[in-house]
């Protein structure tokens, strides 16, 4: 139910922001009706789940995202600096790390966070085991230290156990 409500709310807000009509009652009503129709169809099709619309992460995401943003900026500057140096000090290597998240959603958030950070790309995700390609030894160590893993798991939180794991 939470996901249906939040989907409807997000659709309404999105409609308002993209259309920019705030005053005409007819248009607002039609917008509301279209949002309701989408929620109804999505409900009938049974495609509303905790993966497509992870509202339950809620406020924990607001702790994780700024940290991730900071990491991205740091990694960007590091990789950019390495690229423009004439000697180009890169040491590409592959490594495997374990993802400690309980759900697939958590695994995917972790894998995408790794890929989003320049210098590391997730090339494999199999049963909670990640194959990561890193461009430098430092970037590889950053992943192996497991700080990002811990933070994603913390964001996933205990609420995730309520949403059952999809096979």
């Amino acid at each position, binding site marked *: 139910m939470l996901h249906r409500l939040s989907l409807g709310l997000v659709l309404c807000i999105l409609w308002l*922001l*993209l259309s*920019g009509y705030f005053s005409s009652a007819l248009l607002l009503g039609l917008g509301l009706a279209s949002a309701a129709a989408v929620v109804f169809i999505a409900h009938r099709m049974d495609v509303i789940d905790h993966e497509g619309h992870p509202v339950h992460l809620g406020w924990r995401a607001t702790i994780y995202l700024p940290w991730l943003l900071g990491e*991205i*900026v740091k990694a*960007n500057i590091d*990789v*950019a600096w390495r*690229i*423009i140096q*004439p*000697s*180009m000090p*890169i*040491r*590409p*290597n*592959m490594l495997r790390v374990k993802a400690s998240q309980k759900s697939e959603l958590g695994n995917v958030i972790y*894998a*995408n*966070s790794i*890929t*989003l*950070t*320049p*210098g*590391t*790309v*997730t*090339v*494999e*995700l199999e049963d909670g085991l990640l*194959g990561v*390609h890193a*461009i430098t030894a430092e970037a590889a160590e950053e992943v192996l230290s497991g700080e990002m893993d811990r933070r994603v798991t913390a964001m996933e939180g205990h609420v995730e156990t309520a949403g059952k794991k999809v096979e």
Partner: protein
Amino acid sequence: MALIADIVSWICLIAGSLFALIGAIGIIRLPDVFTRMHGAGIIDTMGAGLILVGLMVQAGLTMVTVKLLLILLFLMLTSPTTTHALARAALNGGVKPLLDKKNDGEDEPSKT
């Protein structure tokens, strides 16, 4: 106030362009498919991100900013997915990643 906004947005735009340029140089200079992806990652995150932030400051608190914010959001969600798909396809297609050239003495690196 408008001057400060202009300065901030131009700093963002120029820095973003610079990162996009460095990313492009990286794509040319780096030795193989997988390392080149890291160069592309710079353009995806810092390049596009800073340019969009600069444009948002230019636009102020308007509808345009909301749309730019949505572009940024979708970019941040889709770019790692495409990068991962590309890397996975390359790996499954039999491309061997070039690993630490100091150890195995590859003569591939395209040093200028």
